[in-house]
């Protein structure tokens, strides 16, 4: 296939593939997508699906913010929601965003597409299981639609007992089943990635030559495999508790409601790292590429992902400082919580050092990555207030917590997701997008996001509780700023959507390597051929950017013919 003939040792030749060979066109028809075992098509289907879930969850969020523009009037009437409906909206917003969007967003959508190509493999280890996990996601989503039709869910996404087990009159069981099935989807993705990274590495791809995105996905897969089953059994116990009165979480029958919180957070705290680790991993790729510089502290970043994954299992009690657990346990959990800050900070300092004296290119992915650094720093540092027992007692269940985790989940994960989406978009669909409108969208979204959530820190620290339908007048200004911010964020994201759709329709054809990255996914054509690589690509240092040079003819980067791998890294 290869048409280039000059190959120096270590240099890679981007194979020129005929148009029909790319994964989008090698077969047609609905069934060729629905039954596909190709990780790239499954990734694209995941992408469409999680974006639909994101849209739905976002609409719920806007409904909440609109309602909160004014407090309820003297008769307790809201703007357009009843208190019950409001409770259902925030529960569904949380459950849909967490289980249907954030958790699968980066690993299942981007990860599925990129992991094997970046690794230099033809597919994930278990393609059929991969398709299964996509359909399990769909079944889980259907359960949530059933919840919507059966009158919603008002327990919050956390399903705390005894409210969820004995009191709530909403469709708790379908929601639990939905989350249970989504958990299995996540487990199967995790097993698949774990085995792929262990067993499908091409010759020369040692663990310490893996790009950092793959290290992040590896750490994520470890958490998915080790934590999600515990959520599964917990949700199942709650289902039987609610359906048959089995008595696990019911004190009247000999059970313990706080046990549910322990089980739930044993999964859900590590799950927080399922959400953020892949995001951090994208940032490592983008920052190195767009600073035109080798990543700084490769091994530290790689190992810190694993450290975060492991520490994440020992800190769940910091969600329960006010639950009545023993002060000794709380103290230990608090201390362990601080330990997670260390590997997170290692990553941030290494990213900053990578940029230092780099040749920074402000492309759209980089704009998002910089946004990530800023927002994640705020989200991470406010987490320390909540990990400290004394301040947490004051801040527990206030808007401060809401603002904190939105800075991490949205400012962190969503921003990284968008960085990754813009970064790999040309590779995925073979089309370039308009840099200008991408950057405008990013800036509008950034302003909107900060306007939404920064005021929430203030009202939270002044005592505004989360999940309340109404509020006292002194919080009005913060709520109104927040609502205006939410609509600004919407405008920003609509610009992003417009930008990407425009790119699909009218975008210029993307070169193999538009950004000049040295990782393997840029060595095949854009979009990649069905088999990814005809021959196993040769593996080198994934961050040695000297191996490529700008080629004005293709408007992309090509391999330097005279490249000799340096021994410096």
């Amino acid at each position, binding site marked *: 296939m290869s048409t280039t003939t000059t190959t120096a040792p270590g240099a890679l030749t981007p194979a020129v593939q005929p148009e029909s060979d790319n994964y989008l066109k090698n077969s047609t028809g609905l069934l060729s997508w629905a039954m596909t075992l190709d990780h790239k098509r499954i990734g694209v289907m995941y992408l469409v699906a999680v974006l639909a879930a994101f849209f739905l969850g976002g609409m719920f969020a806007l409904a909440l913010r609109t309602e909160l523009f004014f407090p309820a009037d003297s008769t307790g009437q809201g703007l357009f929601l009843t208190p019950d409906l409001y409770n259902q909206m925030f529960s569904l917003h949380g459950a849909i965003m967490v289980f249907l969007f954030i958790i699968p967003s980066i690993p299942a959508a981007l990860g599925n597409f990129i992991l094997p190509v970046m690794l230099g*493999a*033809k*597919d*994930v*280890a*278990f*393609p059929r*299981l991969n398709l299964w996990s996509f359909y399990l996601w769909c079944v889980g989503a259907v359960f949530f639609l059933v919840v919507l039709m059966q009158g919603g869910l008002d327990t919050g996404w956390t399903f705390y007992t005894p409210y969820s087990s004995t009191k709530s009159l909403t469709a708790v069981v379908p929601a639990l089943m939905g989350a249970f099935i989504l958990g299995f989807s996540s*487990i199967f993705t*995790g*097993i*698949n990635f*774990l*085995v*792929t990274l*262990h*067993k*499908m590495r*091409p*010759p020369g791809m040692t663990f310490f030559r893996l790009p950092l995105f793959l290290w992040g996905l590896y750490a994520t897969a470890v958490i998915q*495999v*080790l*934590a*999600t*089953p*515990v959520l*599964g*059994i*917990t949700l*199942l*116990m709650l289902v*039987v*508790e609610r359906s*048959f*009165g*089995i*008595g*696990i979480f*019911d004190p009247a*029958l*000999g*059970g*313990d409601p706080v*046990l549910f919180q322990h*089980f739930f957070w044993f999964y859900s705290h590590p799950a927080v790292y399922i959400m953020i680790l892949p995001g951090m991993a994208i940032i490592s790729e983008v920052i190195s590429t767009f600073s035109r510089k080798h990543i700084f502290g490769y091994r530290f970043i790689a190992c810190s992902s694993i450290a975060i994954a492991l520490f994440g299992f020992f800190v769940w009690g910091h969600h329960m400082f006010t639950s009545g657990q023993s002060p000794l346990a709380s103290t230990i959990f608090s201390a362990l919580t601080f330990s997670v800050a260390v590997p997170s900070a290692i990553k941030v300092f290494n990213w900053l050092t990578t940029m230092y004296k780099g040749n920074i290119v402000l492309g759209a992915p980089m704009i998002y990555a910089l946004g990530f650094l800023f927002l994640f720093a705020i989200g991470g540092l406010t987490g320390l207030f909540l990990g400290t027992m004394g301040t947490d007692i004051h801040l527990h269940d206030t808007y401060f917590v809401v603002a904190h985790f939105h800075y991490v989940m949205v400012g962190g994960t969503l921003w990284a997701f968008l960085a990754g989406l813009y970064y790999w978009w040309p590779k995925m669909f073979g089309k370039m997008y308009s840099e200008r409108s991408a950057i405008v969208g990013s800036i509008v979204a950034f302003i909107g996001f900060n306007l939404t959530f920064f005021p929430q820190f203030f009202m939270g620290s002044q005592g505004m509780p989360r999940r309340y339908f109404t509020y006292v007048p002194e919080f009005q200004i913060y709520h109104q700023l927040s609502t205006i911010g939410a609509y600004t964020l919407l405008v920003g994201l609509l610009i992003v959507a417009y930008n990407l759709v425009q790119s699909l329709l009218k975008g210029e054809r993307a070169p193999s390597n538009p950004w000049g990255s040295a990782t393997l996914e840029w060595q095949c054509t854009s979009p990649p051929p069905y*088999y990814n*690589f*005809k*021959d*196993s690509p040769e593996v080198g240092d994934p961050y040695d950017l000297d191996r490529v040079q700008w080629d004005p003819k293709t408007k992309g980067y090509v391999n330097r013919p005279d490249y000799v791998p340096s021994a410096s890294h």
Partner: protein
Amino acid sequence: MSTTPHTAGVAAAPPHGAHAHGDHAHGGHGDHGDHGHHNPDVAHHFDTANQQFDAGKLGIWAFLVTEVLFFSGLFCAYSIWRNLNPEVFLYAHHYLDTTLGATNTVVLLFSSLTAAWAVRCAQLNQKKGLVLCLSLTLLCAFGFLGVKYVEYSHKLHDGIGWGTAYQPHNPKLFSELTASGHYLNGRYVSEIAAERNLGIDGVPYAELDNAGKFQIAEQLRPEFLPEPVKVRTFFGIYYGMTGLHGVHVVGGILVFLWLLVRALKGQFHAGYFGPVDYAALYWHLVDLVWIYLFPMLYLIH
């Protein structure tokens, strides 16, 4: 479990042997190009049969880890409950039939043996043996579920359900229990009788016939009622744990049925036996879980 397709192939010269053992095709480079020459048992995205086998093996082990963690939630709940309400467990386990439980333990242990033997048969190209072993494993699995059905239906018939469904309504139940188990609310009748020198007409308890022992148990009964309030908790966890285990047995049956069909078609041989191996590993775990459940629920002292 230690035999890889490679070594097994050398020993037994499988039908598709030549391609399955890819030394010749591999000079340190993944040879992605030769789809035409690929072993039909190796999926397109793997380079060699060994790579495929290893991937499957790691995959099944990772899956088993998730299974262990899945059950661990219930085991954790069990230990917390038992720690909170030890008297409940001591009292209630006498409702369980140790003989049936022990029978099922033997049945499952035997099926683990046949499952492991099935792997060996596949490795040695013994099609008949493979079919026989898979069938025996299936038979045991159905037998296990049959015994479980008998246990469940007896209990439910007497109103011994889970949680809120615990409403014992068989008046003879208590008498039967004491007659067979000689047991009252956490203590053996024999113990109490020995302590208090109880007997009938000077004959000590230990030397009485069953009717006599029963009479003494009935005398003591009012003193030792009521039963622990939260006794239903025990049955909640009993049905929860054995039920989930039962679901896994059903899952195993489906897998072994699928393997049996494939084995009858002659699809397994020394160069390709991964699925049999993985299913057997899963089955051993199901067996192992039961080995913990049996003493934890039936053999409490």
